[in-house]
């Protein structure tokens, strides 16, 4: 055992970094931000950003998977390892770096030992009152993570057999089986380390008062429907950080008033998810806010289609192929205010995971065809499947939560399907109901939602297609696929694992186990006085804003 980062991890990370740099250089995002200036960071000021919803699902990270909870928590909590952030990290790459862990080692295929930073203190707030974080906190957190009923993120750490805290600053994870993604799993924005005292005092962590972490800022105030206000954590364990004294998160559900606030200089970051500005508004934003900094990259977020694949008619691969062939992705994106026709095609692993997503032209012939829009071919496939007159079905979608552009895309999809003979009756559900019931399989025929919460590529096939997984709502139980998924998880050699994952994506496309989809090439924007900032995919707003400073 060594006290540093093990060679295996470093090698993979270095390799990923190299692959990432090459990939980005060739096909990746076109960054429009000005190069980082060699200036001395300034401390102080308030970073002003916005979110599109209240944390309606509460503040307990173990009782929801929703971004409306995880984004606010990202300012106040820490985890063992995290996705690196800052101007030197290109969007669409997700290199890992230590957070609460000082170092770690993999002592054998199923054992990880983490050494915690010493002297990390909780926020100086009751009921924890700034006591030192110890390995018991980590053990308590992950035992709760795995035991809370309805924790939709449980699969993130389900490979853990037991957690030990041999001394105050050491945590040992023993896994049930080798898991090459374990570090990436720990970097998920659902693995925040929580304090036992808060759970004991409040019963759970749904209340704002229970938000006591070790992160860069402390939640000072939550005014429902108005704002979340954070102030600097005086005990933060990274010396000198955060630069900003406070973060003011405006809660504004109305896209017009959010945009108006940004145009009027009342926000430092663009007003949509991940600090994105809709392309529709980009010209006026650049006119109103001269020298606006921007970065263009592909969102992880894309359509997620759920089918009852074990029941007719969706148990027929030709019907599933018809569903994809019938949809014009171009039409969806032309009318989309975010993309205005700018998008990337997604195989099973979204293109936003630049290192792991297979290029569409490397899919098999049947897989490639899925992305070729043809109403006639869709009709032919349906006829071959015994539905010459098409069929009637029902599709559920969230009527709230994802905004009007999502609903526009749903309408275009349903219209496209209808043209091919698939008459899908659209049933809109409230977001909270959708996120807590439909996506866990409580639907009768089909659903349309969004995916894109995960920065580790494995989640896009492991959680969706492995038998027994809560999000395997299509009840896929395909031995060949299952074997491939297990194999990649056991494969620590990165190039070999990448090949297996490419094979998985080819197989998934061939079987049409997912609806073809695409991601918007979005533009994130931020004010010129915000320095040392770079957007990226994922819920970790706090992590990305921590190193930003205000040059005013």
């Amino acid at each position: 055992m060594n006290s540093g980062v093990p060679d295996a991890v470093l090698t993979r990370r270095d390799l990923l970094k190299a692959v990432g740099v090459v990939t980005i250089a060739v096909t990746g995002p076109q960054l429009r931000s000005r190069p980082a200036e060699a200036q001395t960071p300034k401390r102080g000021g308030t970073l002003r950003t916005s979110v599109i919803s209240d944390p309606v699902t509460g503040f307990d990270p173990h009782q929801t998977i929703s971004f409306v909870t995880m984004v606010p928590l990202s300012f106040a909590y820490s985890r063992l390892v995290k996705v690196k952030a800052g101007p030197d990290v290109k969007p669409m790459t997700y290199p890992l770096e230590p957070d609460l862990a000082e170092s770690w080692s993999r002592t054998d295929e199923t054992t990880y030992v983490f050494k915690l930073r010493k002297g990390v203190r909780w926020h100086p707030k009751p009921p924890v009152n700034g006591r030192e974080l110890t390995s018991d906190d980590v053990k308590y957190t992950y035992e709760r993570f795995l035991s809370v009923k309805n924790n939709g993120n449980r699969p993130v750490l389900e490979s853990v057999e037991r957690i030990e805290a041999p001394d105050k600053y050491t945590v040992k994870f023993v896994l049930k089986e080798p898991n090459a993604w374990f570090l990436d799993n720990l970097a998920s924005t659902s693995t925040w380390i929580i304090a036992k005292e808060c759970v004991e005092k409040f019963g759970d962590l749904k209340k704002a008062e229970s938000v006591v972490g070790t992160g860069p800022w402390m939640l000072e105030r939550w005014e429902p429907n108005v704002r979340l206000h954070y102030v600097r954590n005086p005990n933060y364990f990274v010396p000198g950080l955060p630069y900003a004294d406070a973060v003011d998160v405006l809660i504004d559900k109305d896209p017009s008033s959010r945009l108006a606030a940004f145009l009027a200089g009342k926000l430092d970051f663009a007003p949509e998810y991940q600090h994105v500005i809709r392309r529709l508004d980009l010209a006026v934003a650049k006119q109103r806010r001269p020298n606006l900094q921007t970065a263009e990259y592909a969102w992880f977020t894309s359509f997620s289609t759920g089918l009852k694949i074990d029941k007719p008619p969706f148990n027929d691969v030709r019907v599933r192929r018809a569903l994809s062939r019938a949809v014009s992705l171009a039409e969806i994106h032309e009318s989309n205010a975010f993309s205005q026709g700018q998008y990337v095609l997604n195989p099973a692993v979204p293109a936003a995971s630049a290192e792991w997503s297979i290029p569409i032209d490397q899919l098999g012939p049947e897989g490639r065809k899925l992305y070729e829009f043809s109403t006639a071919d869709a009709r032919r496939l349906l006829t071959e499947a015994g539905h010459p007159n098409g069929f009637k079905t029902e599709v559920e979608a969230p009527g709230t939560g994802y905004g009007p552009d999502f609903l526009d895309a749903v309408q275009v999809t349903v219209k496209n399907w209808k043209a091919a003979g698939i008459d899908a009756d659209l049933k809109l559900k409230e977001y909270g109901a959708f996120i807590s019931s439909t996506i866990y399989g409580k639907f009768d025929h089909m659903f349309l939602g969004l995916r894109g919460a995960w920065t580790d590529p494995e989640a896009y096939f492991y959680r969706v297609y492995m038998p027994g997984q809560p999000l395997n709502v299509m009840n896929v139980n395909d031995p060949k696929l299952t074997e491939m998924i297990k194999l990649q998880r056991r494969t620590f050699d990165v190039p070999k694992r990448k090949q297996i994952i490419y094979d998985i994506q080819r197989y998934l496309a061939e079987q049409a186990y997912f609806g073809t989809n695409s991601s918007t090439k979005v533009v994130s924007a931020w004010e010129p006085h915000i320095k040392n900032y770079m957007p990226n995919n994922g819920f970790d707003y706090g992590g990305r804003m921590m190193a930003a400073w205000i040059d005013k």
Partner: protein
Amino acid sequence: MRRYVFRRFIVAVPSLLIASLIVFTLPRLIPGDVVQLMFEEKSYAKDIEEMRAKLGLDRPIAVQYVEWLGRVVRGDLGESLWTRQSVVDELGRRLPVTALLGFEALAVAILIGVPIGIIAAVRQDGPLDFVARSAAILGLSIPAFVMAIVIILLPAIWWGWSPVSTFVRFSDDPAAYARQFALPATILGIASAAAIMRLTRGMLLEVLRQDYVRTAWAKGLRERTVVLKHSLKNAVIPVVTVLGLQVAQIAGGAVIVETIFGIPGMGQFLVEAILQRDYPVIQGINLLIVMIIVATNLAVDLTYALLDPRIRY
């Protein structure tokens, strides 16, 4: 008068009781097992039995109603399932916000609607009347949410200025607290102002044709005296009735305007409560709305007597 007021209060009691029964029963008539849904979607309790007990559903419905009513009379509306706070406390925080917004909106409606209605009636078929009537049609035609978005967005696009800012609490800055309602209240009040203007104009025109008004003109009284002293009082009685109805309309409009302007009032809270299936809050807000409507109607009836001495109860 006192007897009338007392009688009206007595009559209001059955209205409130019937309303409370509806408010209590409606959530229980929603198809499907709402409790099951709430438990699965929201994890408001450890298990389904605890969920039922939390909502008081583990007893016969008549017992539930009587118990609930008993608590309501004592001022206890239960606990919000979402925020875990007392519903009375939650409403107590939000009611003043919506009440001030509604009050300012009503003031805007009266201050714009009545004077313009008078001018339009006095200058019937003249340019002023034409402009006033056109503006009224415009005000009635444009929904409050469209007007709000245009007013918020266009100045931001043209001049980089936005009227919307983060909500200021009364304790932080009382003046800014009151000021921030001006624009949403104006938007909310404009549709009501249009309705009031049209009604004031119509009623005043009718009164101005009455014999006693002609007599007043014949006596050589000044126009101001004839219109404001002799005609207006009789003309505004129907306007007062409409004002009562406008309270309900403004309360409905507040739901949208509060969302657009980020005002944490009852309207937003009701929407959230519905989305969160937070039935104690939904019941509490609906009961409060019923009480406000009943009280408004009572106030309207009493105002008649003040405006027209011939009306005696």
